[in-house]
C-alpha cells in the first residue's frame, strides 16, 4: 500500500517533468533563448564593463552583485540560525547516549601534515580569492578553502588552542564581514556614482573600481571562512 503510494507520487512527479523537459529548447543548442538573449551581452561587454576576464565573476560581482549580497546574507543567516539553535539550548541529554567520546584522538601523521600544509593552504586560498576575476575562483571558493583549513586545525588541536586560532574580540564582526563589506562598497558606489553597488568603471577613477572589487572578494573570503568555521565549531562544541 505504502509502496504503491510512493510509486504513484514519483510517477506523478516524473511524467510531467519529463514531458516538460522534452519540449524545452534543445540542450546545448547555440540558438536556445538562454544563449541568445541576456548571456551574449555579458560575454561581449563583461570583460571591459565589469573589469573581470572571468565573466562568471563579472556576473556575480557586477551585474548580479545584489544577488551575491543576498547570498552572503543567506550564509550569515545559516550561521546565526545554527548558533541560535545550538547555543545554550538547555540540557535534556538522554543519559545512555550522552557518553559519546569527547574527542577522537587524531594520529600524529594527520597532525603533522595539517600543520605543515597550513601556510600553503592559506597562500592558496589568498590566491584563489584575489585571482577570481581572471581564473576560476573568487571569494567563495577561497573562503571555503580557508574555512576548511580552520576546520582541519580545529580537529587536530585542543579546544583552547583552537579557540586561540580565531581572534575572540572581533569574532562576531568578522563573521559578518561579507555582508558588511558589501554594504560598505555599495554605499561607496552610491556616493561616487549615484547608484547602490555600482563601480566607477570609466574615467580616471578606474583604480577605485578595482580596489572595491578586491575588497569585496576579500570580505567574502574572510566572512565565508569565518562562517563555515563557526558553524562547524558550534556543532562540535555542543556535544
Amino acid at each position: 500500500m505504502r509502496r504503491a503510494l510512493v510509486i504513484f507520487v514519483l510517477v506523478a512527479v516524473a511524467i510531467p517533468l519529463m514531458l516538460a523537459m522534452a519540449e524545452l529548447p534543445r540542450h546545448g543548442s547555440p540558438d536556445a533563448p538562454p544563449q541568445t538573449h541576456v548571456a551574449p551581452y555579458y560575454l561581449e561587454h563583461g570583460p571591459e564593463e565589469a573589469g573581470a576576464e572571468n565573466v562568471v565573476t563579472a556576473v556575480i560581482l557586477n551585474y548580479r552583485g545584489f544577488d551575491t549580497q543576498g547570498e552572503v546574507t543567506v550564509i550569515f543567516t545559516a550561521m546565526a540560525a545554527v548558533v541560535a539553535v545550538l547555543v545554550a539550548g538547555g540540557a535534556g541529554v538522554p543519559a545512555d547516549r550522552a557518553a559519546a567520546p569527547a574527542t577522537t584522538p587524531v594520529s600524529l601523521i594527520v597532525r603533522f601534515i595539517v600543520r605543515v600544509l597550513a601556510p600553503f593552504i592559506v597562500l592558496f586560498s589568498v590566491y584563489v580569492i584575489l585571482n577570481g576575476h581572471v581564473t576560476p575562483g573568487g571569494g567563495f571558493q577561497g573562503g571555503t578553502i580557508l574555512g576548511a583549513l580552520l576546520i582541519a586545525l580545529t580537529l587536530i588541536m585542543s579546544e583552547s588552542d583552537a579557540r586561540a586560532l580565531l581572534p575572540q574580540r572581533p569574532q562576531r564582526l568578522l563573521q559578518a564581514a561579507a555582508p558588511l563589506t558589501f554594504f560598505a562598497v555599495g554605499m561607496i558606489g552610491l556616493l561616487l556614482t549615484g547608484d547602490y553597488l555600482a563601480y566607477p568603471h570609466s574615467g580616471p577613477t578606474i583604480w577605485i573600481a578595482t580596489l572595491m572589487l578586491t575588497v569585496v572578494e576579500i570580505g567574502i573570503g574572510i566572512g565565508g571562512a569565518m562562517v563555515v568555521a563557526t558553524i562547524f565549531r558550534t556543532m562540535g562544541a555542543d556535544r
Partner: protein
Amino acid sequence: MIAALWHNLDYAASVILFCIGLYAVITKENLIKKFMGLNIMETAVFAFIVAIGVVEGGEAPIMGAGVEPPFINPLPQALILTGIVVALSTTALALSLIIRIWKQCGTIEADELREVE
C-alpha cells in the same frame, strides 16, 4: 517524446535524480537520510540549471588571449554558485536541528519520534 528527450538527455537525467531524492525524502525514516534525499534533489535542480547554460563545443567564459567563441553561458553558473551556498546553509541548519532532536529525544528516526510526540 522519447526522441525529444534523447536530445535533452541532461535534463532527463536531472529529473531522474530529482525523483531519487524525492524517494529518499518520502521513504527514509532516518532524518539525516531524509535530508540527504533533499540534498540529492537540490543537486538535481542545480544540475538542470547548469545544463541550460551548456553550448556545444563551448569554452569556459574566461576571456583572455587565445580563447575563441562559443562560450558557455556564464549566468547559470553564477546562479548555481548562489544556489550551492543556499543549499549549504540549509544543510547546516538542518543538521543542527537534527543534533538538537537527538539530544532531546534520543533518536532521529521519524517513526520513533512520532511516538515520542
